[in-house]
């Protein structure tokens, strides 16, 4: 004979404080867990998703990033016509010469941060085809215009569509905003490459070239040819490898966050199951009574298990709602979470709690619900009714 569901429902009415506490502890655990998972996955997205396997990065030999590389106009013009480079509809090679500078930007709070400013030509949007404008338009070369990444908008003074940014020696009008699926490009500002070289008084016009290969098989021969060319002392690597190497320097940060999250998860999960355990244990006498009335062990176990899972479910829903609200609130408050990149520039990650993060939190809540409820319910169901009753 199954225990009627109304028993569990009435229990909530009979012990509102305790039930609420159990549910809210689970909710808190879910909030903490999903925020952490959100932070981890946002961080990972920025670190890992940058770069395109079809692109090759060309830099001066020995440089470890765009920011410290230099490259001459002659080498760009030579490499542009190497074999194996993809071409656009007008038969122009898809090679994007780029100059990276890290000037100070004023944050809205009055601090200052190094921001990666990338000087590009309009072809850059074709080479980096995951970068797309979501507002406004592409800048017009040599007219003091800039487009800014989503992560930069609102973080710095003047970094909004239609506003004027001040960095380096000049002023730049923001005419567009771009996104790139959360990759590190979103923390950058793009301007005309010649204007930037002029502003930064750079002896070399470029710091590197990004090349789109025609077919995947062309990448290796092209990279070998660039590496081996004695005229320029350049090195080439796949864009994905390049960003993977950049991400290594943020590994300590990543490990730290994951470490904290694991510790917090263990602590909170342990505590929440403890809470659940107590909630069931407090009702030993009731279980004894139910047994005395003739309900089977299986029925009692099922009822308690259903109740525990339902409670965990309520806690999860509450917690997930809070986590989403909190992440939106934090986004508005902080406008993204910044960390220093290997190029000494600021990477801004937008804290997003996605479905996968909530899924992780759900697994934890379910573990707490099932694990925390099973132990005491099983023990209580196994007690002889007379002993359980004696405890009352």
């Amino acid at each position, binding site marked *: 004979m199954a225990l009627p569901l109304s028993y569990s429902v009435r229990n909530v009415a009979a012990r509102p404080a305790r039930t609420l*506490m159990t549910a*809210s*502890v689970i909710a*808190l*655990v879910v*909030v*903490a867990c999903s*925020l952490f998972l959100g*932070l981890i996955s946002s961080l990972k997205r920025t670190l890992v998703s940058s770069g395109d396997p079809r692109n090759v990065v060309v830099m*001066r030999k*020995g*440089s*470890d*990033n765009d920011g*410290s590389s230099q490259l001459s106009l002659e080498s760009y013009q030579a490499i542009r016509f190497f074999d194996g480079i993809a071409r656009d509809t007008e038969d122009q090679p898809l090679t994007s010469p780029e100059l990276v*500078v*890290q*000037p*100070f930007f004023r*944050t809205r709070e009055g*601090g*200052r*941060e*190094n921001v990666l400013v990338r000087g590009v030509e309009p072809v850059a949007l074709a080479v980096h085809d995951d970068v797309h404008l979501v507002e406004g338009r592409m800048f017009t070369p040599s007219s003091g215009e800039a487009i800014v990444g989503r992560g930069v908008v609102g973080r710095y003074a003047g970094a909004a569509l239609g506003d004027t940014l001040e*960095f380096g*020696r000049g002023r730049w009008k923001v005419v567009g905003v771009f996104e790139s699926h959360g990759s590190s490009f979103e923390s950058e500002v793009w301007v005309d490459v010649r204007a930037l070289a002029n502003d*930064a*008084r750079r002896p070399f016009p470029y710091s590197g070239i990004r090349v789109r290969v025609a077919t995947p098989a062309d990448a290796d021969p092209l990279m070998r040819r660039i590496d081996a060319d004695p005229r320029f*002392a350049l090195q080439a690597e796949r864009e994905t490898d390049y960003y993977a*190497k950049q991400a*290594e*320097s943020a590994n*300590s*940060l990543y490990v*730290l966050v994951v470490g*904290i999250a694991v*510790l*917090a998860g*263990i*602590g*909170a999960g342990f*505590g*929440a199951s*403890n*809470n659940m355990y*107590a909630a069931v*244990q407090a009702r030993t006498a009731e279980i004894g009574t139910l047994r005395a009335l003739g309900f089977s062990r299986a029925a009692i176990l099922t009822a308690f298990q259903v109740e525990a899972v339902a409670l965990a479910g309520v806690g999860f829903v509450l917690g997930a709602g809070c986590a989403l609200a*909190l992440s939106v609130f*934090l986004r508005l408050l*902080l406008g993204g*979470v*910044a*960390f*220093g*990149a*290997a190029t*000494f520039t*600021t990477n801004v990650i937008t*804290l997003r709690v996605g479905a996968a993060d909530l899924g992780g939190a759900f697994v934890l809540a379910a573990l707490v619900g099932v694990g925390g409820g099973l132990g005491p319910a099983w023990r209580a169901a196994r007690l002889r009714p007379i002993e359980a009753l004696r405890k*009352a």
Partner: protein
Amino acid sequence: MLAVLLVCLLLTMPAGLDAFLDNIASNTRVSVHNKAGLVYAMPYAFTRKVRQIDGVAAAVAMVWFGGAFEEAGRVTFPNFAVEVEHVGAVYPDYGIAPQQLADFQRYRDGAIVGRQTLHKYGWKIGDRVTLRSTVWPVALDFRIVGEIPNDRAPLFWMNREYLDQALKAQARPGLGIAGMIWVRASDPGRVNAIMREVDDLSRNSEAETSSETEKSFFSNFFGSLKGFVTIILIVTALVALCIVFIAANTASMGVRERAGEIAVLKAIGFGQRVIFGTLLAEAMALSAGAGLGGVLLAIGVTHALRAFAGWSPSLGPLGSFIVTAPVIVDGAFLSLFVGMLAGVVPAYGAATKPVVATLHEVF
């Protein structure tokens, strides 16, 4: 206990930042750099003009070398080319031995290295190391002639002339620039005047400068980490809140289990206050014990972490994992507070319940 460990660990991050700013930054040192950013250099000759300003005790020009050691292929500790004859006078507080500073001037390929980096790579004074620059097209051999005797100093200083000549040997123009100029004022009261004069001196030139105190420089440099710390602190607060709930629950379980004992104690005449006090004291003692354990564990863990953490551009001083005295006090107070919060409700309940009711629950 786990909770206190966690909270202590998390608190070390902002504390590390504060400790860094308070301890390392001197109140007489000023940073001068191009207003547009650290990668926008200043003409080297500007250093000489700065030196002539009244109240400037010493000034040194630094250039980022961006040297990578061995396999890494990337910069694993900050390294700069400095003016060997001036650097000692700008950093007297670093406590570098005078003999080592003299050697630094004598040997063109000399280097002075912070103890953190020395330990990390197992280098000793007298060793030779090669760094390949990621900024300049050179790889240079260095002879380590001195150390900065501070376990947390990752710095590596080399002779500016050495780099300059290496560049000229490649038929390139020499250095000619100063990335940063560090100035030491003869007395703290002159600092503001010096900063103003330096910036006035460069006004309307190709490279306008902006000067700031060392503390302000580093707090700006690491300022972008603040948002990150905020998030961590928020989550920590959430976890701490969870823990209060959980501890309260555990304490009430403990009291419930001993309902019989408490009833007997009351029956033989112990007053409500005594029972309340005993239970509360017990809860607090327990959590204080756990807190102590947590703090000790945190110290142990941070030591372990520090061993392989080292310098990293993404963490900055957050990676130095220092458990400072305030962090320990915070942790201890937190655990006492948790104990009190958690103990007070069940202890009060147990103490005020009539004897008969309690005994009734037992028998």
